[in-house]
């Protein structure tokens, strides 16, 4: 009997068995689908978040901020999460801005929000010179424009516009703090003059206003000289009073980053340079790597449960199928044929379940992408290829085959004579 014919015969036996035990097959398929979907999602989401947070469209090489944690600095300024570690004098900004090794230095002043979206005081360079990806700038879409540094004007990110309903011409009042508290409303009214296009970066969740606006916001205190200073309307603020939360930096060469790192972090005591941003985030992922290990273990556990359910669902049919095997043997089927039929059946369930697992995977990854984007503005790529998408299918099929061994051995050892008819 040729291999192809043999396979066709086995497939007929498998198809009929799956149909005959449709309910248990369906439930087992679902468990295999859940298992493989979870495994794929854990590995894929892990890789995608890692890639997105360590190599995503950040656009800056480093962040200069108050002495403290580099990670806090990056989370606060790049991803607009976490609190600010403190401020640094304006002078540090102007000094580093003038350094010939620096291509771009943009000051950030944070501390206010609108409906939970961070308000960042910055300069117009954020729109004219900053590129979040090569050749891509945060450009307000027509009919919008960038803010006038001397007016209470704002440019908002695309997600802010979508979630708050603010449009060009809308007005709003900032709220003090990074968490929305309706009791902490500032009296200053800002008008939206631009909405940036979708950048799939944390900038989509930011309300940009002139940095002067932060300095002059009611209740804000500047401590650039070490003593408190409150700006007065109509009066210019001396640079010595000014403070910034951070300075976003782009260097002309990677060597510059190394040298600044030596000067600021190793020898200096005033400020911290978070450089390179990707490495800082990678260290975060290294620190929380155990979470992924636990998630992976949970996924593997679900795979084990799925393998067990495949084994149980087929094994439970063995008693009623003894006669079927005996008939097949009487028709000339070899022991290894019925053995193979069971292995093929369990493999088929696992493989079909794994294929169905792509739906589970898609649902999990798309949900994760929505949640991550909603929380951070970072865009995952749900359709990015990950080796686990292939390896899980292969692995589940092998596990399915393994799960079929015990019932297959039972089928293999079926006694033909006693299971056909009662022997006389």
């Amino acid at each position, binding site marked *: *009997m040729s291999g192809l*014919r043999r396979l066709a015969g086995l497939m*007929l036996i498998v198809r*009929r068995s799956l149909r005959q035990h449709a309910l248990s097959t369906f439930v087992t398929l679902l468990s295999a689908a859940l298992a493989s979907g979870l495994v794929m999602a854990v590995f894929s989401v892990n890789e995608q978040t890692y890639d997105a947070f360590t190599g995503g469209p950040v656009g800056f090489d480093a962040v200069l901020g108050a002495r403290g944690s580099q990670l806090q600095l990056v989370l606060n300024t790049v991803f607009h999460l976490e609190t600010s570690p403190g401020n640094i004098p304006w002078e540090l900004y102007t000094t580093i801005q003038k350094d010939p090794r620096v291509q771009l230095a943009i000051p950030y002043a944070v501390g206010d929000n609108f409906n939970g979206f961070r308000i960042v005081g910055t300069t117009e360079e954020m729109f004219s010179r900053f590129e979040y990806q090569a050749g891509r700038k945060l450009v307000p879409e027509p009919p919008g424009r960038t803010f006038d540094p001397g007016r209470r004007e704002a440019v908002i990110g695309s997600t802010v516009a979508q979630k708050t309903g603010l449009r060009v011409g809308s007005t709003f009042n900032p709220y003090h703090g990074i968490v929305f508290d309706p009791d902490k409303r500032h009296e200053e009214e800002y008008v939206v003059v631009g909405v940036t296009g979708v950048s799939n970066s944390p900038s989509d969740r930011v309300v940009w206003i002139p940095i002067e606006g932060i300095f002059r916001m009611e209740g804000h205190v500047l401590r650039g000289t070490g003593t408190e200073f409150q700006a007065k309307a109509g009066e210019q603020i001396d640079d010595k009073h000014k403070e910034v939360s951070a300075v976003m930096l782009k260097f002309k060469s990677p060597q510059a980053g190394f040298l600044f790192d030596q000067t600021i972090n190793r020898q200096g005591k005033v400020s911290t340079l978070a450089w390179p941003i990707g490495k800082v985030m990678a260290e975060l992922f290294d620190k929380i790597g155990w979470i992924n290990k636990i998630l992976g273990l949970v996924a593997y556990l679900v795979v084990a449960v799925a393998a067990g359910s495949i084994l149980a669902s087929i094994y439970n049919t063995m008693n009623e199928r003894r006669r079927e095997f005996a*008939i097949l043997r009487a*028709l000339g089927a070899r*022991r290894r044929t019925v053995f193979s039929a069971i292995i093929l059946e369990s493999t088929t369930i696992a493989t079909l379940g794994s294929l169905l697992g792509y739906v589970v995977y898609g649902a999990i990854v798309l949900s994760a992408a929505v949640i991550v984007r909603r929380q951070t503005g970072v865009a995952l790529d749900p359709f990015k290829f990950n080796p686990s998408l292939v390896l899980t299918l292969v692995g589940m099929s092998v596990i399915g085959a393994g799960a079929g061994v015990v019932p297959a051995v039972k089928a293999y050892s079926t006694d033909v*004579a006693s299971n056909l008819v009662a022997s006389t």
Partner: protein
Amino acid sequence: MKLLEITDLKKGFDSPEGERTLVIDVPAFSMAGAEQAALEGSSGSGKTTFLNLIAGILRPDQGHIQIDGCDLTALPEPKRDEFRALNLSYVFQTFNLLQGYTALENVLLGMMFGPGPDPAFARLLLERVGLSNRLSYKPRQLSVGQQQRVALARALANRPKLVLADEPTGNLDHGRAQEALALLREACRENGAALLLVSHDRGILKQFERVEELSNVNLAGRAAPPEKAAQKVIR
């Protein structure tokens, strides 16, 4: 030329007491090609065991079974399975159709382990037994008589040299039994297959030219009454 030749065949089973109970002791039995023979045997006479030995499903303790020149007893199990698929077929009292499969699939499955599926021939066989309009019916959707006819079609699916029939009409009423028997014999003749049928139904047996008492063939059952046909042998 002899198609089936059995010599000095013995088969026993272990009893719960640990004794070996001899149930088959056939010094000699033979059939010619395309011959149709019937064995008369009552319940407990070892007739199913005898047929299972000829089919190669069971292995004898000693002796030889030659079918078409091939010593079945010398073959390892996988080869016996292959030989059975290519040369023999079995018709059971309980039909032994696979319930999840259609009539056509049952016949095709009979071919699967032999020369391979031949859908056209499978259809022809089912047409021959009058079931051309029941190809896609599953056994539970068929009458008892129709199920037996599917079993007949399956038995002939691989163009066997020898058809073994174990009380093939035992579950049918008299009319259907006669009809099924006639069909079986005719189909075997048409396909050049020999037929060895065992039955205790005199109405069936009298239609065969060659009828043998199983107790004359199988000496293991001679000394004891039918219900205690087995001859005990101390190990």
